[in-house]
């Protein structure tokens, strides 16, 4: 049974090679720990954050601009200081990381589903369908993500009623960032699907009447999951940065529910006035997050690429 073979293979890989290369790379261990801590902190934000920065009623503007607790004038209630609205920077970072990760993960999932789906179809069916999909991919690949996101954001905001903006901004971002990333997956998967579909066992499966969906799902997909995972990890880092960049162009999440990028953008206004903590702390967290995710991606790529061993 192919299923058994697959799971056995996966287990074997997890038991030996992957785990071994993980164990022996201190950088990877540190990045994995950092990622884990940040993700956990973001997930647990409602529990561990001292304040709820999204609840406007809890903000007191008289607390605005307080420095971190170790600076003169800092208050224990706001360990990393407060921003221009009196928002606790630590809580804002925790909640902001939540939003950034949410946007990142969701758009990657969106890209993967779209890209893998189209790639499988393209590679398996071939012919005209393949040509059309790959042509679109070419165009899309050369069209930069931020421009696509700008366009989509503009259209979506125009089409949706104004009072839905708050809730919808996130979905729009996910869609915009996700749609600009599917091509890489599609190309990778297409190549593998093409190779696999010509192999004898697939031909045989086809002859005995197994439907194309089953073949794609059972035989081809597992073969491409390695590279897809690698791309997805690096893509997650790019998605988080893209969200931050878009917030600079004014199409990010609203400032009342800031992401890490929005926090940095807001903090930018205070770089010269000496309130460095409003930018620097979210900046550090963003760098840590993106860096460790990228390093994990690096490791994963090298570890899953048997040629490099």
């Amino acid at each position, binding site marked *: 049974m192919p299923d058994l073979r697959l799971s056995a293979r996966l287990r074997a890989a997890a038991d030996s090679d992957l785990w071994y290369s993980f164990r022996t790379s201190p950088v990877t261990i540190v990045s994995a720990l950092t990622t884990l801590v940040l993700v956990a902190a973001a997930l647990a934000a409602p529990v561990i954050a001292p304040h709820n920065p999204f*609840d*406007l*009623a809890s*903000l*007191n*503007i*008289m607390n*605005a*601009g307080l420095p971190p607790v170790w600076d003169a004038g800092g208050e224990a209630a706001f360990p990393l200081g407060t921003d*221009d*609205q*009196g928002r606790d920077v630590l809580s804002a970072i925790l909640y902001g990381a939540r939003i950034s990760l949410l946007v990142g993960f969701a758009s990657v999932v969106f890209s993967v589903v779209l890209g893998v789906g189209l790639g499988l179809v393209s590679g398996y069916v071939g012919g005209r369908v393949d040509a059309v999909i790959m042509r679109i991919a070419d165009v899309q690949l050369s069209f930069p993500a931020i421009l696509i996101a700008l366009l989509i954001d503009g259209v979506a905001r125009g089409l949706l009623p*104004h*009072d839905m*903006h*708050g809730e919808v901004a996130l979905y729009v971002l996910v869609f915009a960032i996700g749609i600009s990333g599917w091509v890489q997956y599609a190309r990778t998967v297409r190549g593998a699907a093409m190779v696999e579909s010509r192999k004898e066992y697939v031909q045989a499966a086809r002859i005995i009447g197994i439907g194309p969906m089953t073949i794609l799902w059972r035989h081809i997909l597992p073969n491409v999951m390695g590279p897809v995972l690698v791309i997805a990890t690096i893509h997650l880092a790019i998605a988080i940065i893209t969200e931050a960049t878009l917030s600079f162009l*004014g199409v990010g999440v*609203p*400032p*009342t529910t800031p992401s890490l990028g929005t926090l940095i953008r807001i903090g*930018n*206004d*205070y*770089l*010269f*006035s*000496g*309130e460095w903590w409003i930018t620097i702390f979210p900046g550090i967290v963003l760098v840590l997050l993106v860096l460790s995710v990228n390093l994990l991606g690096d490791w994963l790529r090298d570890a899953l690429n048997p040629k490099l061993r």
Partner: protein
Amino acid sequence: MTLTSKLLRSAAAVALAAAVGAGAVAAEAATLRWSYQGDATTMDPHGLNETFTLGFQGNIYEPLVGYDKDLKLTPMLAERWENPEPNKWVFHLRKDVTFHNGNPFTADDVIFSWQRSLTEGSDMKGYGAKAEAVNKIDDHTVEVVTKSPNPILPREWVFLYMMDKEWSEANNTTEATNVKGSNQGNHANLHANGTGPFMLAERQPDVKTTLKRFADYWDKGIATNVTDVVFTPVTQPATRVAALLSGEMDVIQPVPVQDWDRLEKAPGVKPLTGAEARSIFIGMDQDRDELKYSSVKGKNPFKDARVREAVVRAVDVKAIDEKIMRGAAEPLGSLLAGPINGFDASFGTPYEPDPEKSKKLLAEAGYPNGFTVTLDCPNDRYVNDEKVCQAVAGMLARVGIKVDLLAQTKGKYFGKVLAQAGYDTSMYLLGWTPSSIDAHNSLLNLAACRNKDTQAGLFNLGGYCNPKVDELTHKVGSETDQAKRNAMIKEAFEIVRDDYGYLPLHAQPLSWGVREGVEVVQRADDVLDLRSAVVK
């Protein structure tokens, strides 16, 4: 030769040397490097009725009557003017004025400029239309006939600049720059020939504009020693401030208010501040029977004065000034800022904040749990506009009014809330500078009932309406007795206040940054008049 004569002679030589030296200093090139957050949109004096554009052009072109540093009227190309009949103004023109190309300035140029202001592409039609006819009495006297008595015509024409008829005809630019059609006839968009102290040397829109001193300028008494001006728009506030701090700029405007401290501490630069003529306020839709963007259905809570009072009492205007504006703004209790004609000291007292009373009022009005409403806000128009809106939203949230903040660029914001879009808002933040620096303009645009035919209340986006205010506005428009007029202005604004018609926030601060050794006069309309600029 005697000793005395020797001494005398050497003394004379020293004096001569000193004189020559002084002359050399005066003729020495002094360059002013200047930056604003945007560019003057056009060099065409009839192209756009916007303060910065017109203020910039005011260094190249000149009106008949202009503003001095305190926004008081001062003779420019007209030496004097009089109002012999109610419908007639006579302007006596200076005789020694030449344009930059050497052409003399005469009555024909005045008539031409007025006619040009009424052509299709002009945005100054409103000003031109104040006159029915402009007639030449002689080469240096013109008579302006108005449709109805107009006691403030010279003030209304402060930004109507004079162009050279001959130059305009020679360059095929006798009509105002038009966005429609081909680029033919838009010579004045990129070129200029005025009577002002500076000539346009190079124009690269949005990139760089350089001006050169005009040697034959008629007024030898202006303070400036500047011979060259390099103007560069810098959009990002941080980049603009960095350019000043690094010594690459002499004057920048505006400076973010939170950076004032930094400029004060940094060596070689300082902030230059004052009260601007612009007031910032929050308006509420009191016109619709059901709010467009609210959780309340079937009725409009803002029609209830108690709810409006609850809003007003929930917001601590002084705290916003202190924290968001860093104490740079003047808190206000009315729609009129300090430098405006008709301002009364009482207007500077904000409503007393009282969140407890707000909650009580909301409960009385039938909203014990508050309600939800969307606040429209620009994020690139006024000083810290989005931050002010956030602070207001926070304060309202604490009494139970949950605010969805919709902060957008000015293009989207104005495209939504203004009359053309049918006042598509339930609550909004707006700023207003009356273009005539007179209270009547504010009353007419912001406080009078909306009236499509008379254009009254055009910017009264929330549809506040009280017939008594309407009546007073009308009276203020024609009253010539200043004391009576001011009393009526005060009465009108007090009614608006008692109605809780608006939530006034503050007068926006003027906020420039200058290099030490540079002296400029900061006008309350945010205009930099280069006639005052001295560079050491």
